[in-house]
């Protein structure tokens, strides 16, 4: 019973927050709703016994991705009036996409629920292990090449982002921490005896 209450509560909050994302007038509120929806989705994972995935969802999406979303949205100066003008024009296309998605999900859900779909046979490799270790076993034995390939794709994307934004500006004085730390009184200071009324010769 407690599990059912938890599920319906979390599911209702997830859906409600998802609705908030598309209906808020302020984009920052949209991102905050998105965060709420991620967070309750993580709660849904916990109710299904996938606590490792739940924590990863919070760490990666809520803790890192959504922070950057918020960062960008706060910096943008979005003109809401201009955004709303095209609403009537885009309405039919948007409605069509939403309708297709809804029909697809209903078809898949009924097919899966009535046993029409061949469910991917999930090998219970080590039923006694907690799911962290099970995921580790599966990722690093059965699917190690796909896993490494996915890592490679992310690495390429990261290098690409750095190459696109890296600029070497000539003529900029850069700080060299090593030089600063290695400075001694001898190399950084000169003691000059000044005779009164004469000043220093450069």
């Amino acid at each position, binding site marked *: *019973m*407690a599990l059912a209450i938890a599920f319906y509560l979390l599911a209702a909050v997830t859906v409600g927050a998802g609705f908030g994302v598309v209906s808020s007038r*302020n984009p*920052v*509120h949209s991102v*905050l709703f998105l*965060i709420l929806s991620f967070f309750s989705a993580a709660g849904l994972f916990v109710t299904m016994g996938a*606590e*490792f995935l739940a*924590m*990863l969802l*919070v*760490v990666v999406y*809520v*803790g*890192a991705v959504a*922070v*950057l979303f*918020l*960062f960008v949205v*706060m*910096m943008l100066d979005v003109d809401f009036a201009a955004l709303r003008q095209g609403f009537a024009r885009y309405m039919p296309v948007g409605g069509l996409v939403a309708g297709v998605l809804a029909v697809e999900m209903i078809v898949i859900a009924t097919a899966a629920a009535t046993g029409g779909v061949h469910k991917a046979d999930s090998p219970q490799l080590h039923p006694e292990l*907690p799911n*962290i270790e099970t995921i580790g076993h599966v990722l690093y034995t059965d699917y190690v090449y796909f896993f490494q390939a996915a890592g490679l794709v992310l690495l390429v994307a990261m290098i690409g982002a750095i190459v696109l934004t890296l600029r070497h500006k000539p003529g900029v004085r850069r*700080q060299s*921490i090593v030089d600063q730390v290695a400075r001694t009184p001898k190399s950084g200071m000169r003691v000059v005896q000044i005779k009164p009324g004469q000043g220093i010769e450069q």
Partner: protein
Amino acid sequence: MDANSFWATPGGWTLITVAQIMAVVLPLLVALAFFMLADRKIWAGVQMRKGPNVVGPFGLLQSFADLIKFVLKEIVIPDGADKFVFLLAPVLTFVLALVGWAVIPFAPGWVVSDINVGVLYLFAISSLGVYGIIMGGWASNSKYPFLGSLRSAAQMVSYEVSIGFVIVTVILLAGTMNLQAIVEQQAGGFWNWNVFGGGLHNLPMALVMIPMAVIFFISSLAETNRPPFDLPEAESELVAGYQVEYSSSPFLLFMIGELVNIVLMCALISVMFFGGWQAPIDLPFVHDWPPTVQSFYGLMWFVLKVCFFFFLFGIVKAIVPRYRYDQLMRLGWKVFLPTSMAAVAILAAWRVFGPAGA
């Protein structure tokens, strides 16, 4: 416990858990008043001042006087502020700082929630802490708070990366993410603590783990916005950063949340690297004591360790000047990140090819 008893039903479980949470939160908040005083006293001592010494003997009641003052003042909400987010931000900071304590093992068997992903849970909660600051800065609708919150977002995201890798080194040594299990593995004496490689057969790994503990300590300074990394509230540049527009109880919530986070980080350092509630030297006669007494004995060591690391936090605040922003980013991305990644690689290799290898 009997499976049919009242305490095994959902209602009874809720009651017991609420009682456990209260047993953690209330002493913590009272202790916090004295941690705050200790912080000010350490700071004052370094500067050869006396610090708060008027309210109560040695100023012991200063924090309570401050509490009353904060609560009784008027809450000022700026005109252009986003009221809901403005008030939500300090509450969020406060709540997130407290929920982290759910998985901290205080003594043998004394933990509110003994979950398998305890380390990850703490990591997730601490990565959420940034939202209070970002939301507060943005909702204030003012320049300095906004700049402060942007700095904070970039800073915390940067240092979380190296904190994550340091945590991976500890998980590699311990082979579990359960904090209680991590502490239990460090039993037997201080040479078994993770900071010295977790056991004599791993002693060469002390060369890796001691720097990791130092990196974790410095990163947790950055993660909790403590000096020398308190750029989000740098008073010389940003007045008080994201806190500029806050007053009264919301400001108090921000301040308590920040301090609870600091103590949480101290607890995490002592659990992950310094054996949590394990005594530095395993005295044989302790095992003959009744379990409850042993638990209090463990709690004593845990509290002592947390106080020691809090003292380090206080000393660092008093004697280290604030970093410049680009230096902060350089330290996080160019020094800590490569070092901790190298440490993960070395430790993983040691676990597989070393003497205790799989």
